[in-house]
């Protein structure tokens, strides 16, 4: 019996070594550091990365880790106990999940290496031999390399901080980074600007350029390595108080459809307005805002019965009710036709003219660009970090990028694999030089 156990262990070790050698070759071909092939769990994750199945690889790694821990506990526990049986059932369930995820990952690898799907049987039944063949035969070449974004050099930083202004928004973001599955990712870097009160600003950037990250960092919702001041007051250190002076309207109309318009707004007023404001003043404010946003006629209608435009106006009104100084809107015109969208942006322009700062993300900027004062252009640099490619007046932006339209600007900074011109690095560097020159 003991011999059988020893043989089993020896088989496990040989199998692990052979698969690791095979993975070594595969990792090298795919551009992943080959030593990961010897590290338990790291190799499971990285084979998934090679297969362009990172999401599955994460789940696979977590399940594999859990499975190992349970296996260890099971080996240490008494085989005759109920506890052992329960653990064995859970371990078996995890093993089933592991096999399913392994199949998904190997199918991804087959796709990347442009091979026939029957190789999957090889990976399942003779994994060690198959991985050795794939790792060391010159016939097996991946169609895509894993790019290590962290290893790439990003565009140089300006390091010129924006001086704090007494009336308006001062943004000095050094860096916004996250640690995601043991990897550090820099989402935003070197963003400095002053936005005076009364300005309506367009936030432009391609997919993944960091627009939402920027907005979350500016509002203090997700703090960055930054100093953000509104009228000289630090948003980060006084976030608990300052958040009421910042209105953020999300892209989706996040409201309860089965409540009435007036009551939705009344509840929003109760949440957002200072507690010192009396009930009657709140009611008055609700009525004013209903009138201002053209919702008075539907005040007793259920939210779910409103049209797209009315719903959007209500969503904006919910934030506007507290009269915030900084007003941010994420694609307020999504799903609205041109006329309704134009009306909405004119309303936003009127809000800015009251001395507020309005920052808007929109994917159809050109139909309303005349209403904006400034434009912020964010772009992904070579290291896939969101960088500032422009902040300033709209007309100067056209001149800077040599484009007539905002969509043209967007096209020029988008990566080539996204159908753009791939000039992000060029413009980020040009803008950095401009800032450095202006700062002397």
């Amino acid at each position, binding site marked *: 019996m003991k011999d059988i156990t020893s043989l089993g262990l020896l088989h496990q070790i040989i199998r692990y070594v052979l698969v690791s050698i095979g993975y070594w070759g595969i990792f090298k071909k795919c551009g992943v550091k080959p030593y990961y092939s010897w590290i338990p769990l790291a190799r499971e994750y990285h084979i998934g990365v090679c297969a362009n199945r990172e999401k599955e690889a994460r789940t696979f790694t977590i399940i594999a880790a859990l499975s190992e821990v349970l296996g260890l506990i099971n080996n240490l526990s008494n085989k005759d106990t109920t506890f052992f049986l329960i653990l064995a059932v859970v371990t078996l369930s995890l093993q089933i999940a592991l096999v399913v995820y392994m199949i998904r990952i190997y199918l991804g690898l087959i796709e990347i290496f442009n091979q026939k799907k029957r190789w999957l049987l090889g990976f399942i039944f003779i994994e060690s031999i198959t991985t050795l063949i794939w790792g060391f035969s010159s016939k097996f070449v991946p169609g895509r390399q894993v790019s290590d974004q962290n290893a790439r050099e990003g565009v140089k930083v300006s390091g010129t901080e924006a001086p704090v202004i007494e009336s308006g928004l001062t943004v000095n973001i050094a860096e916004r980074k996250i640690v995601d599955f043991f990897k550090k990712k820099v989402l935003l870097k070197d963003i400095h600007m002053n936005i005076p009160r009364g300005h309506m600003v367009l936030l432009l950037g391609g997919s993944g350029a960091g627009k939402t990250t920027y907005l979350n960092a500016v509002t203090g919702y997700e703090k960055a390595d930054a100093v953000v001041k509104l009228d000289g007051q630090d948003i980060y250190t006084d976030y608990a108080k300052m958040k009421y002076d910042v209105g*953020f309207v999300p892209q989706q109309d996040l409201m309860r459809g089965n409540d009435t318009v007036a009551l939705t707004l009344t509840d929003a007023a109760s949440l957002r307005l200072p507690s010192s404001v009396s009930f009657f003043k709140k009611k008055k404010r609700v009525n004013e805002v209903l009138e201002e946003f053209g919702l008075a006629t539907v005040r007793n209608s259920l939210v779910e019965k409103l049209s797209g435009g009315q719903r959007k106006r209500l969503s904006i009104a919910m934030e506007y009710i507290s009269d915030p100084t900084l007003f941010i809107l994420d694609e307020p015109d999504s799903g609205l036709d041109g006329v309704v969208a134009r009306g909405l942006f004119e309303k936003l322009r009127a809000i800015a003219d009251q001395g507020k700062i309005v920052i808007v993300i929109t994917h159809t900027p050109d139909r309303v660009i005349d209403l904006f004062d400034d434009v912020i252009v964010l772009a992904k640099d070579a290291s896939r970090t969101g960088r500032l490619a422009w902040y300033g007046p709209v007309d100067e932006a056209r001149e800077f990028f040599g484009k007539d339209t905002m969509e043209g600007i967007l096209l020029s900074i988008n990566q080539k694999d996204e159908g753009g011109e791939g000039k992000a690095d060029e413009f980020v560097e040009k803008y950095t030089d401009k800032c450095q020159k202006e700062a002397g």
Partner: protein
Amino acid sequence: MSEGGRVSNMEIEATKHTGRFPQMIIYLGKLFRMFVFQSDWKVLPMAAIIAGLVSFAVGDSLFKTMEGTLMGTFALACVCIWNGFFNSIQVVCRERAIIKREHRSGLHISSYIVAHVIYQAVLCMAQSAITIVVLYYTKVTLPDKPLITGLAIVDLWLTIFLVTFCADMMALMVSSLTKSTTTAMTVMPFLLIFQLVFSGGFFALPEQAEPITNTTIAKWGMTSLCAQADYNSLPMVSVWNTMFKMKDVEIEGQKPVWEFLKYAEANDLKEDILIQTASYNTMPEYNFDPVVVFKCWGWLLLWTLVYIAVAVAALEFIDKDRR
């Protein structure tokens, strides 16, 4: 609030916003409005229908015999768990994105959850009352000896309420932990099966599984109901019924079982035999004792508090939700 002009730093510092208690009131108002506008009210007639079905299935011998009481209280506990689960399983996860937005605007998660707790408590109270009314009108014999409050029906209502409410809070916790209604509805049957299998009262479990039974709502609900019904004083009919089935068994041309049954019937001994049989099958954990009931209620309240705490803690991380 500024009038379009600047808000001074001191003004912002000094401004106080709606606290936890007023926020809870706002949400409570919202939830009761939803009760009318939305389909939440449907849980009340649903409770009546389910209670009616249980009464039809097990009502005849519920609180009358040991076997009927064991089966009936198990069914009753399951009904309460079912009602509780359905009340809350989707309430948080279906509006998760809205909660995230409101949290960003200053919503206190504890206020939100406490509003749900109070609202659900009211729903559970109503459902428990409806269940008892249905049992009463379908002629189910209800316990008549009070143990805690002086009124047996109130004791029964309290137990049914605590079981329903505990299950409701468990569902609220699941709803707070899951990010979609699909996930919540997938998890629910697993929890229900766990409650049924590991209650330990109806299905015999190995000794090692005993600690697990303490985590189930069904166990404490069933134990409390059995204790309130004075389970150990009820007659046991299974031996008599088995003997009746064996009445034609012949031994050396005689039918001794039949003879015995005839003798017992003729001398009014049947009830005594049923009670005597029961006395050999009493269970101390179902004693007609306030301590037993208080212990069950204590466990139910403890788990209710744990579920509420986990729900609050889980939702505090709502800002981490991806878009």
